[in-house]
């Protein structure tokens, strides 16, 4: 594998804070919250203990035409919306009969998801039970399959260099970026549309997470519910959203004079092999992921100004992560945790928060952690809270972890 430079030239997102990157970033800087009370009967029907979630700020039907919507699962819809934005932001037109802005054989896709299309699976099962076979959509399988989001992006952008769907639970989005970087470094592609998406707010997922005791039940104060690193945190807030970036070899980007946001300089992917949901108590996998990310990036620990923490606002997870980061990077690194504002976007989280990390370096300002009022004394690193903080650091790390023992750390640098 060569040490080919991989740069970010386009970004797109749809999140609980806004329908694009700019509104999401503004929301983070201004301390907005994406968490609201779930306005659906099923919360009462099933007496769910968590009655809050972080839904999209902009519904897909405000963006995509009706017939496209009915052929795609919600997860596919939002991946496509974010990919459109990223593609256009990178300065590309959609492919047409006359023009292909990137050679299709050199264009790849790597968009991860935790679950894929459970809303379609469940909805069509209801249709089968209540109305029979005839009314089941012939698009059921392509809508529920987890590679559907990546496949739709491949179709839209005419990407033929390979389409990948990392499934690493809540680390899927970050693994999407890592996969894209590998595709470029190994010479398989010049440009990769990479990211993650999730849309699975449904009674069964809320019930399942509730039964694993991982959701916040601060139902009377939705906007204060997601509070990473705060001593009063009580679980995560289930969110939905997608983030997609255009990764490009530095040569390809330079040849077309592209605007460069920053560099994806290294990635570390490890597994705990310890417990199906819990992180290893020594944090070895998390530490190794960070070390590998900065090692492959050719960086040293002192280059890293801040870590965009995975920090979902669970009691055990946040402290374990802070301890692992401190062991990997020392006492001077600072943390920030966007999930205080965004909620937890599951398979979209790592991708959206990679965009946040890239913008932090690009603009020289790191968003604060919403709702961090009383830092947990067991967290032995400084966490940015209150106001955003200026930074002139050259590099930052984005951490993502997932059920199954997945640890993904991405090292970004300024261009």
């Amino acid at each position, binding site marked *: 594998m060569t040490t080919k430079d991989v740069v970010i030239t386009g970004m797109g997102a749809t999140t609980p804070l806004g329908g694009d990157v700019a509104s999401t970033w503004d929301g983070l800087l201004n301390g907005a919250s994406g968490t609201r009370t779930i306005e659906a009967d099923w919360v009462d029907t099933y007496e769910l203990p968590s009655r809050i979630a972080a839904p999209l700020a902009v519904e897909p039907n405000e963006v995509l*035409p009706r017939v496209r919507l009915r052929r795609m699962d919600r997860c596919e819809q939002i991946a496509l919306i974010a990919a459109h934005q990223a593609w256009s932001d990178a300065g590309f037109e959609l492919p047409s009969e006359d023009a292909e802005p990137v050679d299709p054989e050199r264009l790849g896709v790597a968009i991860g998801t935790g679950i894929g299309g459970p809303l379609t699976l469940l909805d069509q099962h209801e249709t089968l039970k209540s109305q029979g076979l005839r*009314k089941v959509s*012939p*698009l059921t399988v392509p809508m529920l399959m987890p590679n559907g989001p990546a496949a739709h992006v491949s179709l839209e952008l005419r990407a033929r260099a390979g389409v990948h769907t990392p499934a690493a639970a809540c680390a899927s989005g970050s693994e999407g970026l890592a996969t894209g970087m590998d595709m470029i470094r190994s010479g398989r592609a010049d440009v990769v549309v990479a990211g993650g998406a999730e849309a699975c707010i449904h009674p069964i997922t809320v019930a399942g997470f509730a039964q694993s005791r991982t959701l916040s039940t601060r139902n009377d104060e939705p906007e204060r519910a997601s509070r990473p690193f705060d001593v009063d945190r009580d679980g995560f807030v289930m969110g939905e959203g997608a983030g997609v970036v255009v990764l490009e070899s530095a040569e390809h980007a330079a040849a077309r004079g592209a605007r460069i946001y920053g560099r994806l300089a290294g990635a570390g992917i490890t597994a705990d092999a310890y417990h199906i949901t819990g992180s290893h108590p020594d944090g070895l996998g998390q530490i190794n992921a960070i070390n590998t990310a900065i090692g492959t990036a050719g960086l040293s620990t002192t280059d890293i100004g801040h870590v965009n923490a995975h920090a979902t606002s669970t009691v055990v997870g946040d402290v374990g992560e802070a301890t692992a980061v401190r062991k990997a990077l020392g006492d001077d690194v600072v943390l920030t945790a966007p999930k205080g504002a965004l909620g937890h976007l599951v398979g979209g989280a790592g991708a959206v928060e990679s965009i946040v990390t890239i913008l932090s370096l690009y603009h020289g300002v790191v968003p604060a952690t919403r709702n961090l009022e009383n830092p947990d004394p067991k967290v032995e690193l400084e966490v940015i809270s209150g106001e955003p903080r200026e930074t002139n650091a050259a590099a930052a790390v984005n951490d993502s972890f997932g059920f199954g023992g997945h640890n993904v750390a991405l090292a970004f640098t300024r261009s």
Partner: protein
Amino acid sequence: MTNEEITSGLASIVEEVAGVDAEEVSVEKSFVDDLDIDSLSMVEIAVQAEDKFGVKIPDDELANLKTVGDAVDYIVKNA
């Protein structure tokens, strides 16, 4: 039901399922070649046509309905 009414009913189904403007849907048009409708959408169109016109369209008959006119004739004969 007249042929015109059947054609117009089919056109609204095609518009609903495949997003083709109903005015584009006329008897001489081929579903695949002219209206760009794929085999998955044809299954949905057939199910909706069965309900709307009270016919059965088995898969081996569906395969023979190349144009909108073919479908109208089939419905007239079998309704």
